[in-house]
Each structure stands twice: as structure tokens, then as C-alpha cells.
């Protein structure tokens, strides 16, 4: 029989410590929608998504009530559009982005991911069309998210793509400059992108997946922070044990929700992504966990070690709780979405270079970082190249979601609203990398990729 203590513990996590299911994301295969006529393709995509995901939002709400746990987001990921759009021979995929946006609004999800291209070894014609469509697509749509995978441990890094993406990010920022350059908050560039990630902006439905799948992202940095208050002053073994136990419980809740959603929607269950994802709310922050661990602020010496401990312990607890762990699984460190990270960046405790170091041991990368609007495209490409190199060499996923906020300078801040939060403009190293980026070509696969 369930004890009173257990009921109270769970409900305290939900009511006071912001435990929630961060997202139920339905992955939908669009490969067989491909056809030569653009209008017909858009209709097929719209029909496919609205048919498959018709009950997604409603199902999320029923489950949320049944178990008394908030399910914050219901989202959709689709097959990378570059793979679907190629047959049209079109010179722009913006109409497809608009069809995705309409479908998202019809079914009531807040984001749809998959306006994406996989170019880690080279760009096909369709990949180039997609990449060139990104600035307009993110300008004219509300809910569409875009991603490009430019590198992998197996193939190296496509530096031609890295160069172009730097320019594309600038163009996107300029096109949406009147809205805090928000287009860039919906675009992420990856190395080793996972095919089953439920989190935005990088979610897409990989080509190795079934026709439809339910992936669930759990969260709960607030719960971990509260749990760590009980082991204040104790050694690292006690600290890790406490994180593991908490991650176990959070993941079990996620797995239950995922199975229930899968059964109700009659769509196979894919994975649980056990990432700790912050929100701008106080008490739902990764940086507060660092402070609880004993750091004065995120960014202080020791931060990378603290993040490594957190990330590793979350995984250990999570894999024990579910046999279907996947996606990004780890800790997210988006600056604009975490009030204590924002505070750390504002007072100069947290720099771009420290964040880069932290991405060596966390699940993603440079995330939701605002930089001056006059930063050059080559410098942005340089930042991306550094991050992709970390991913390639360490055989892990890394990503960059960076916002050159048009018209803003260091010392100012930029407001995105909602879950995306606000970000102080962070200084960027002023020295140039133009000649390096202009070389073009491909960084060959690293030596440890030769495993066969």
C-alpha cells in the first residue's frame, strides 16, 4: 500500500518544486508524402500531421488530469524536410514551412520541429534549398522550428555548411530584428544530432524511426535542487546518490506518461528523454543546483565539474528507471531560460568561454545565448565550428542556438517571452577568424571514428 509519506513527497514535487512532464512529442514520418507538385506535397503534409496528431493535445490534457502532473508542452517532430522536399525541384521550401505551421495551429501544439537538413558530410541540392529557406521560413511562421546537422563523429564537420549557417543565422536575426531576432531562437545547428529528441528547437523524426512514435521529455531541476538541500555539506558520494534517486523517480513518472500516451493515441512509444530542462521560473533552474552544490554562482571555478556530476548522476538514475532512454538525456544549460544563469551572465560570472567548457560535459551545447547584433557571420561560424569540434571529438551531441540580437550591444538585454525567457547580451571574443572559416571544405572524420 502506498504510504502517506510517498504521496506527500510526489505531490510536493509537483506543487512546490515544479516537477512536470516537459513535453510529449509525436514524431511523424513524412517520407512517403514526397511528390513533384509543391501544392500537393503541402496538402499531403498538412493532412498527415492533422490526422496523426488530431488527439495529441487532448490526450496530454487527460493524462495530466488523471495523474495530477502538469504536461507543459505537446509538440510534433517530422522527417527532415530537405528529404521530403527534394522531389519538387522547388527553389524555396517556405511553402512547406507554412503548411507545417498551419498543421501545428490546427492541432494546437506550440512547436513543430523538422524544418531540417542533415548535411554532416555534404549538402545535396535539396539541403541547400532548405538552408537558404530558413531565414524566411522562421520569419513568416510562428511555430516552426528548424535544425541543421553539420557534423558527426563518423564523418567530420561540413565546414562549407558551417560557413553558410553563420550567414543564415545573421539573415534570420535581421529578418526578425523587429521581434528580438526571435527567428534565431527557433533554429539550432547540431553535431551528432539524435533522431529521437523530443525537445525543441532541435526535434526531428529520424529516418530510422517508425511511421509515428511518442517521445517524452521529463524535467525537474527544481526537484533535484530541493533534494540536494537534504545533503548540504555532505561529500560527493552522498550528493551523487541523492541526484540519482531523484532522477529515478522523475523518469518513472515520465515513462508512465509516455506509455499511457502511446496506448491512448495508438502510436508506439519511442523513448524517454531524461533531460533536466530549466524554465525562467524561480525554483526551476539548473544554475540554482550549482549554487546548492556550493558554488557562489554559475560560472565560478568548479562549475564544469558540478555539471559533469549532475549530468552523469541524472543518467545513472534515469537508465535504471526506464529501459527506453534516448534523445539528448542530460542537463540543458540555456541561458535565457534559466533565471539564475541570466543573473550569472549579467554580473559577468558566466562567460561564453565557460559555457563552451561546460558543453563538454552536458547534454547539448551553447543554448539560447544572445550576442551583439553586429557580430560578424564568420565569428558566428567560428563559434559553431568550436562547438561542433567538441561534439565530433568527444562522440557526443553538441548544438548551438545563438541569437545575434539586432541593434543590441553588450550590457543590454533581449526579451523573447514565454518559455524562451530573456537574455543579457554576452560579449564575444573580438579577434577574427575570417580566413579560417573561408577555407571551406570538410574537417575529416577524427581518428577514433575508425572503429570497424
Amino acid at each position, binding site marked *: 500500500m502506498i504510504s502517506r509519506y510517498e504521496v506527500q513527497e*510526489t505531490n510536493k514535487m509537483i506543487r512546490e518544486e515544479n516537477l512536470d512532464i516537459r513535453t510529449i512529442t509525436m514524431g511523424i514520418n513524412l517520407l512517403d508524402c514526397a511528390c513533384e507538385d509543391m501544392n500537393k506535397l503541402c496538402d499531403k503534409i498538412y493532412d498527415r500531421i492533422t490526422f496523426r496528431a488530431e488527439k495529441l493535445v487532448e490526450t496530454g490534457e487527460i493524462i495530466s488530469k488523471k*495523474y*495530477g502532473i502538469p504536461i507543459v508542452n505537446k509538440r510534433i517532430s517530422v522527417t527532415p524536410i530537405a528529404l521530403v522536399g527534394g522531389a519538387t525541384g522547388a527553389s524555396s521550401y517556405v511553402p512547406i514551412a507554412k503548411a507545417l505551421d498551419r498543421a501545428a495551429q490546427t492541432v494546437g501544439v506550440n512547436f513543430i520541429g523538422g524544418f531540417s537538413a542533415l548535411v554532416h558530410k555534404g549538402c545535396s541540392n535539396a539541403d541547400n534549398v532548405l538552408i537558404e529557406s530558413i531565414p524566411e521560413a522562421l520569419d513568416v511562421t510562428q511555430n516552426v522550428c528548424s535544425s541543421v546537422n553539420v557534423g558527426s563523429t563518423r564523418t567530420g564537420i561540413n565546414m562549407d555548411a558551417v560557413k553558410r549557417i553563420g550567414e543564415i543565422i545573421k539573415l534570420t536575426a535581421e529578418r526578425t530584428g523587429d521581434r528580438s531576432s526571435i527567428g534565431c531562437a527557433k533554429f539550432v545547428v547540431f553535431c551528432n544530432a539524435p533522431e529521437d529528441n523530443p525537445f525543441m528547437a532541435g526535434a526531428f523524426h529520424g529516418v530510422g524511426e517508425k511511421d509515428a512514435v511518442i517521445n517524452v521529455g521529463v524535467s525537474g531541476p527544481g526537484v533535484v535542487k530541493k533534494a540536494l538541500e537534504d545533503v548540504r555539506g555532505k561529500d560527493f558520494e552522498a550528493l551523487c546518490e541523492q541526484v540519482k534517486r531523484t532522477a529515478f523517480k522523475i523518469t518513472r513518472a515520465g515513462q508512465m506518461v509516455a506509455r499511457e500516451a502511446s496506448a491512448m493515441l495508438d502510436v508506439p512509444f519511442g523513448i524517454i528523454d531524461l533531460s533536466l530542462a530549466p524554465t525562467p521560473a524561480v525554483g526551476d533552474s539548473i544554475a540554482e543546483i550549482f549554487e546548492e552544490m556550493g558554488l557562489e554562482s554559475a560560472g565560478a571555478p568548479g562549475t564544469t565539474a558540478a555539471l559533469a556530476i549532475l549530468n552523469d548522476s541524472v543518467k545513472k538514475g534515469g537508465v535504471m528507471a526506464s529501459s527506453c532512454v534516448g534523445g539528448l538525456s542530460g542537463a540543458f544549460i540555456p541561458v535565457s531560460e534559466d533565471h539564475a544563469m541570466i543573473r550569472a551572465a549579467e554580473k559577468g560570472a558566466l562567460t561564453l568561454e565557460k559555457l563552451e567548457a561546460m558543453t563538454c560535459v552536458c547534454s547539448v551545447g551553447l543554448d539560447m545565448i544572445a550576442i551583439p547584433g553586429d557580430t560578424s557571420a564568420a565569428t558566428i561560424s567560428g563559434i559553431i565550428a568550436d562547438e561542433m569540434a567538441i561534439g565530433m571529438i568527444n562522440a557526443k551531441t553538441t548544438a548551438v542556438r545563438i541569437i545575434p540580437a539586432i541593434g543590441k550591444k553588450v550590457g543590454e538585454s533581449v526579451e523573447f517571452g514565454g518559455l524562451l525567457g530573456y537574455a543579457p547580451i554576452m560579449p564575444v571574443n573580438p579577434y577574427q577568424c575570417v580566413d579560417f572559416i573561408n577555407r571551406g571544405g570538410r574537417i575529416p572524420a577524427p581518428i577514433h571514428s575508425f572503429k570497424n
Partner: protein
Amino acid sequence: MKGIITVVGKDKVGIIAKVCTFLSEENINILDISQTIVQGYFNMMMIVDLGSTQNNFVDIVDRISKLGQEIGVDIRLQHQDIFDNMHRI
């Protein structure tokens, strides 16, 4: 199907009576009750069996929560599985 009901709020006359009347009308059987009062605050947990009720679980969740608002306490009904999953291997 089992559910867990938690009731939290400032103590007053008739909380248990009203909750139990509601459950009885819904044909929901009470399996276990534990209740305490700490510094004037009423705190109750019930384990109930919803096997015989005709109504939809989510509807009952809504209505019992509304009953709580009428009484002036916080009442929640949750499916037992969330507690089993989080606390049992």
C-alpha cells in the same frame, strides 16, 4: 482502479462528511483513510476504489476539485499508478 485523494486546507466542520457523501454518491469505495490536523491545518489522504463508479475518471477529478473550492480546501484525486511508478520498482 485505485485513486488517491488528498485534502489539504484550513480545518472546519464537515470536510470529511462532504467528501464521503460525494464518494458515496459516485459509488466510490473508501479503502483507507488517514487524517491529521497540524496547527489548524487539515490534512487527509484516502485510498479509494473506483471500480464500481459509472463515471469517467477525469470528470470525477474535475468535480471533486470543484467540491474542494466550495468547501474552501484543496482536494485532488490522482490515479494510484503515479505513486506506484515513482516509489516502487
